């Protein structure tokens, strides 16, 4: 079963409006775990990656469109990778709960790997670029349903 981005947004909306505090969905090849309110379990950060000196500031105004989702923009031009290495598990999947320091992806610039923190708390609602794709400075990487 494949969930579209709209499906995930819809699930998040339903949970948000419900009295549920926690929800797990598991199907073939897909699992979604959502916890409301509390911080939730974060994936381990502290990967052996170094942010280069002078990492540019995040673009000033992440778009906040009417659907209530926020954007994690690319902090630099480079190649977007969802995982640390080919074959490795992605840093985050749709539905993952992230905190400000959670590494969400890598941007590679001339073989220099730069880990990108989420910079906000919430649930990953959309992964915009394909892994291995060129992303420009400020280009949307993830859409996040904000929450603690």
């Amino acid at each position: 079963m494949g969930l579209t981005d709209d499906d995930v947004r819809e699930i998040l909306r339903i949970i948000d409006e419900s009295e549920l505090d926690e929800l797990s969905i598991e199907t073939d090849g897909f699992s979604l775990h959502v916890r409301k309110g509390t911080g939730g379990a974060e994936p381990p950060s502290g990967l052996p990656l170094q942010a280069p000196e002078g990492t540019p500031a995040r673009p000033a105004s992440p778009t906040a469109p009417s659907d209530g989702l926020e954007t994690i923009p690319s902090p630099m031009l480079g190649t977007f990778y969802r995982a640390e290495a080919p074959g490795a598990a992605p840093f985050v999947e749709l539905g993952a709960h992230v905190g400000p320091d959670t590494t969400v992806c890598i941007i590679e610039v001339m073989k220099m790997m730069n880990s990108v923190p989420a910079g906000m708390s919430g649930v990953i609602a959309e992964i915009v670029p394909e892994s291995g794709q060129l992303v420009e400075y400020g280009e949307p990487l993830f859409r996040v349903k904000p929450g603690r």
Partner: protein
Amino acid sequence: MRRVFIPNRGEIAVRIVNACHSLGLECVIGASEPDLQGMAAHLADRAVCIGPGPASESYLRDDLVVHAALSTRCDAIHPGYGFLAESPALADRAREHGVTFVGPPTRAMKLAGDKLAARAEAAHAGAPVLPGGEVATAHEARTLAGEIGYPLLVKAAGGGGGRGIKRVSGEDELDDLLSLARSEAAAAFGDSRLYLEKLIEAARHVEVQIAADEHGAVLHLGERDCSVQRRFQKVVEEAPAPDLPDATRARLRESAVAVAERIGYRNLGTAEFIIDARTGEPYFLEVNCRIQVEHPVTEAITYLDLVAMQLQIAAGRRMAIGQDDVSYHGHAVECRLNAEDPSHGYRPSPGTLNLFSVPERPGLRIDTHCQAGTTVPPYYDSLLAKLIGHGSDREHAIDTVLEALEDLDVDGVETNRTLLIGVMGHPDFRAGPVTTDWLERALR
């Protein structure tokens, strides 16, 4: 060569896009965030955002530039002027990854970038250089200064383009200025080497355009006079240099070609000289490894497209012309219209242009990236447009630019238009060549 990456902005990016298209080449602009809305980004086949506004995080990052060029399948990089145009690091990085760098070999760039090495190479090539030399200690400096005589200049080997220069009026100032210059040079250029050079108080700035292909042909395309300057920055340029004796003109051209040959120069470049206005003697200053802001005045009188030549030479083509095919037609004058506030010491005046309308008339060329609605960001140089007048003689060329300046409509930012009109109409300038200190004196 099929697709060219252009990590630059403003009028020169527009100029390179147009040259690419005239040669049937595709081009990709690497723009900073505020420049994504700019004219060059719109005209190019594609634009990618390489970073935020500050150049240190976008246009000055050779890693981002090469990554973007490779990812957009460009096989060449034309750096324009400024930013990384004379960066051996960018040239090396591009070439290591199989991308053609539109510019000279790295070795020539390094020799030209080291002003002391360039001086030595020029002297070896038989070009006239000013009395002077490197000084490692205060004692050496006093000895050499005694031979040269005062006033003199202390210059940084890593400087150039008017940067890293101090004027020493007498021996009592030498020690202090030398140690100040040394610490400034170490901080600004990462190179504390200094040299002394005789100061020519009344000098003209005259430069020779060089073109060299990958097959050993080295040509000159005549000279330009860029003596109208404010704080070492050129304001008005013209070609040919007016009132230059034939022997001096020949000496400049021969010297420029000899220096280019000696340092293995390829592609387009400029050899800069000063001419002692009192004696008429020329002296080599430096080699610039880039297309220059003022290249259109040479284009106007030679009927050549210098940016297209750069691309063709970089693609490995032989130059289609020999020295005897280079001919000169009439006179051309260029004015640099900058977003500057004359009432506050000509400081940059960023903002948004509500109105920008340039006249059209015979003999007038305008190179610009501006139109109504264009934003002039605070991060970069303040050049709005170059107005180039071409006529059968100097007077006609000056009048063409003067009328264009008067007819120009610009609103939203302050500009130096009044200054330019003043220069074009000034009896000193209209009478013939001026010296590099003239404009600041005339402004008082």
